C-alpha cells in the first residue's frame, strides 16, 4: 500500500501539468485555425514589414493568453477523495464541482502522450458509464501519485481483501514487434483503406473550399478533368492505381496497429484486467471484470490461418451518444489459449460452447437473397440507363457468383447458442464475430415480426443491453417466445447486479 499521499484534502496535479495543459490548448487552437495559418504562411513573403510585425504581435498575445489560461486551469483544478467519492472542483469563471461515487467508476486509465512521456507525468482518466462529460481527466500526475490514486479507487468496498501479489506478475499476453507485424498483415485492409481515403477526402475538401474562395476553381477543375480523362483512357494507369491503393491500405493498417497496440501487455488480476499498449500515446487501462457487459471474439480467415483473434470488451454506455472508437477496449492478436483464459475468467462458457448451433429460419436466407438481387437489378438498370452500353452486363458473370458466395457465407455464420444463463451469438461476412453475453444483463427485450415474416411464422429477437443491441434474426416464433419468456424470467429473478 502506498500511503505517502493524502487524498482527503484538496490537492492539485503536478505543476508540470501547466505545460501539458498549455500545449494541449495550443494544439486545440491550431486545430481550429490551421487553414488560416496555412494561408498566412503561403503568402508570407507578400506581407509588408508592418503587417508582419502585427502578425508576430498577435501571435505573442495569443500565446501569452493561452499560458495564463493554462495556469488558471491548473490553479482551479483540485481534487480529493472523501467518503468513497471522488470529488473534483474545476473551472475558471464557471465553477463546477463533480462528485463520483466509487462504485460508479467503470475504469481508470493511464495515458501518456509524447509530451507527457518527455516530462514524465501520467494522465489519469476516470471513466463512468455516464455521458462523456462526466469523465474526469487529470492531465498530469507523478507515477507514484497516480498509482496511489488508482489503488485507493479500485480498492472500493467489495475488494478489500484483494491480494497485492499481482503486480509485476506474469502477463497473460505480451505482443512483440514480430507478432504485431503479423497482426497488421491480417487486418481488415479494405476498412482501413476506406478510413484513410475518407480522411484524405475530407482534407482535400477543406483545401478546395479555401481555393474556391480565392477564385481559382476554374484552373483546378480543368486540371482534375484533364487528369481524369487521361486516367479513364488508360488501363495501365488503373492498374498502377490499384497497386498504389493496395500499398496504401497495407501501410495504413500497419501504422494504425503499431500506433495503437505497440508493446501490448495484458495482466489478469483477481477482479480486473490491466491492459497496457500504445506507441506515441501510451495507454494503461484497468478494466473491472464486473463492469464488462459482453465480449466479442473476432477473427478472419487470414487470422485463423496463423491462429490469432482479437477480443473487444464492451462496457455500459448511456445516452444516445455513439460509442467513441477509443472507448472500445480491444486486445489484438490473442492466441487460442489466451482467449480461453480471458473468456473463462469472465463467464462460465463451456456449457454454452458445447450447445448445438441453432440457425435462423430459411426465411432469413431468402430475405437476404431477395433484397440483394432487388438491389442489384435496380443498380444495373440505373447504370444501363446512364451509360446505354450492353457491355456492363458482362460484369454480372463475376458479380453474381461472388454475391451468392458471400451471402451463403453470411448465412452460414449467423447462428446462436443459448443456455440457461449465457448467449453466444455468431455473425459476420468475411470476419467472424462471436459475442458472449450473460442473459441476466439485458436491459429490455423486443420481439419484432413483419407481415412477410408472419407468413413463415418467424420473428426477430432484439436484446437491448447497456452496451448496444444484440439481434437474433428470423427464428421460429415459438422459439422466440420461449427465449423471450426465459430471458424475462432470468432478469426478474436474478439478484446479481448487472454492473
Amino acid at each position, binding site marked *: 500500500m502506498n500511503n505517502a499521499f493524502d487524498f482527503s484534502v484538496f490537492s492539485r496535479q503536478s505543476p508540470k501539468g501547466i505545460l501539458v495543459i498549455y500545449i494541449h490548448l495550443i494544439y486545440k487552437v491550431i486545430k481550429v485555425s490551421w487553414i488560416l495559418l496555412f494561408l498566412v504562411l503561403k503568402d508570407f513573403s507578400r506581407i509588408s514589414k508592418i503587417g508582419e510585425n502585427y502578425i508576430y504581435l498577435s501571435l505573442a498575445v495569443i500565446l501569452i493568453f493561452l499560458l495564463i489560461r493554462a495556469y488558471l486551469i491548473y490553479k482551479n483544478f483540485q481534487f480529493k477523495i472523501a467518503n468513497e467519492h471522488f470529488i473534483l472542483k474545476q473551472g475558471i469563471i464557471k465553477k463546477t464541482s463533480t462528485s463520483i461515487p466509487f462504485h460508479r467508476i467503470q475504469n481508470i486509465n493511464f495515458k501518456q502522450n509524447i509530451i507527457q512521456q518527455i516530462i514524465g507525468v501520467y494522465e489519469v482518466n476516470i471513466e463512468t*458509464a455516464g455521458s462523456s462529460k462526466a469523465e474526469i481527466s487529470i492531465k498530469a500526475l507523478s507515477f507514484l501519485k497516480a498509482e496511489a490514486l488508482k489503488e485507493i479507487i479500485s480498492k472500493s468496498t467489495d475488494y478489500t481483501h484483494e491480494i497485492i501479489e499481482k503486480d509485476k506478475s506474469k502477463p497473460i499476453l505480451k505482443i512483440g514487434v514480430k507478432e504485431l507485424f503479423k497482426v497488421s498483415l491480417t487486418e481488415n485492409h479494405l476498412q482501413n483503406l476506406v478510413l484513410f481515403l475518407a480522411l484524405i477526402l475530407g482534407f482535400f475538401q477543406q483545401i478546395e473550399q479555401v481555393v474556391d474562395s480565392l477564385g481559382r476553381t476554374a484552373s483546378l477543375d480543368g486540371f482534375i478533368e484533364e487528369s481524369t480523362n487521361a486516367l479513364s483512357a488508360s488501363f495501365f494507369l488503373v492498374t498502377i492505381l490499384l497497386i498504389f491503393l493496395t500499398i496504401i491500405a497495407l501501410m495504413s493498417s500497419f501504422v494504425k496497429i503499431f500506433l495503437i497496440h505497440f508493446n501490448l501487455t495484458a495482466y489478469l488480476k483477481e477482479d480486473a484486467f490491466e491492459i497496457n499498449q500504445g506507441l506515441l500515446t501510451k495507454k494503461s487501462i484497468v478494466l473491472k471484470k464486473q463492469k464488462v457487459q459482453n465480449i466479442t471474439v473476432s477473427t478472419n480467415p487470414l487470422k485463423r490461418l496463423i491462429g490469432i483473434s482479437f477480443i473487444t470488451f464492451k462496457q*455500459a*454506455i*448511456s*445516452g*444516445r451518444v455513439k460509442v467513441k472508437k477509443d472507448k472500445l477496449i480491444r486486445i489484438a492478436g490473442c492466441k487460442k489459449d489466451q482467449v480461453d483464459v480471458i473468456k473463462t475468467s469472465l463467464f462460465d462458457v463451456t456449457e454454452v460452447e458445447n450447445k448445438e448451433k441453432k440457425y435462423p429460419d430459411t426465411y432469413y436466407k431468402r430475405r437476404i437473397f431477395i433484397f440483394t438481387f432487388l438491389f442489384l437489378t435496380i443498380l444495373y438498370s440505373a447504370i444501363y440507363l446512364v451509360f446505354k452500353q450492353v457491355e456492363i452486363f458482362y460484369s454480372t458473370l463475376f458479380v453474381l457468383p461472388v454475391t451468392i458466395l458471400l451471402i451463403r457465407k453470411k448465412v452460414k455464420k449467423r447462428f446462436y447458442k443459448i443456455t440457461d444463463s449465457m448467449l453466444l451469438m455468431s455473425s459476420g461476412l468475411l470476419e467472424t464475430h462471436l459475442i458472449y453475453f450473460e442473459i441476466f444483463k*439485458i*436491459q*429490455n*427485450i*423486443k*420481439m*419484432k*415480426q*413483419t*407481415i412477410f415474416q*408472419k407468413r413463415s411464422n418467424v420473428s426477430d429477437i432484439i436484446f*437491448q*443491453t*447497456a*452496451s*448496444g*443491441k444484440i439481434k437474433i434474426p428470423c427464428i421460429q416464433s415459438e422459439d422466440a*417466445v420461449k427465449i*423471450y*419468456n426465459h430471458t*424475462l*424470467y432470468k*432478469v*426478474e429473478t436474478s439478484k446479481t447486479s*448487472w*454492473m
Partner: protein
Amino acid sequence: MTDTFQNNVVNDFPDIVEVEFENIDKNYLKVIYINFLLVFIPFLVGIIVLHQLVFPEKINEFIVPIYIVFFVLFGFILAYLVASFTKRKYVLREKDISYKCGLFVKTLTTVPFSRIQHVETDEKPISRIFGLSSLSVFTAGDSSDDLVIKGITKQKALQIKEFITTEINE
C-alpha cells in the same frame, strides 16, 4: 396505491403471449385525428393556393387527378393511423411492463422493473385537452429504444409511475 389500480396479471412462470393486454385510452384516437388535421389542413390550403394562384393553365388541366392523388394519399395515411391505433396495447405485470404496437411490423417490448433507471410522464398540449399523458421508461444504455406508451389517462400514468418508482426503490 389507490383501489382502482391493481396488478392482476401475476404468473410464476410468465408467458408473454397469454397475457391479456390493455388497450390505450379511446380518447387518444381523437388526439390522432386532431394531429392529422393539423398536418392535413396546411397541405390542403397549400394545394388550393397553388391551384388558384400559381399553377399555369397547362398544369391546371390535370388538377382533378392531382386532387385525387392528394386525397387518396392522405386517406391511406389516415386509415393506417386509425388501424394501427387498435394495435397499441400495454400491460403491467408483477415485475415488468410491456407494450406492443404495429400494423405491418409488429413489435413487442418488455422492460423489467429492475432495469429501469427512471420513469417520466409528460403531456402534450392536445393530449392535455383530453386529460391524457404519455409514460416513458428509461433503462441504461441506448435509451432511444426504450418503452413509451402514449395516450393513457393522466391519473393512470401517475399511478403506474408511482408503482414503478416504489418497485425500483425496493
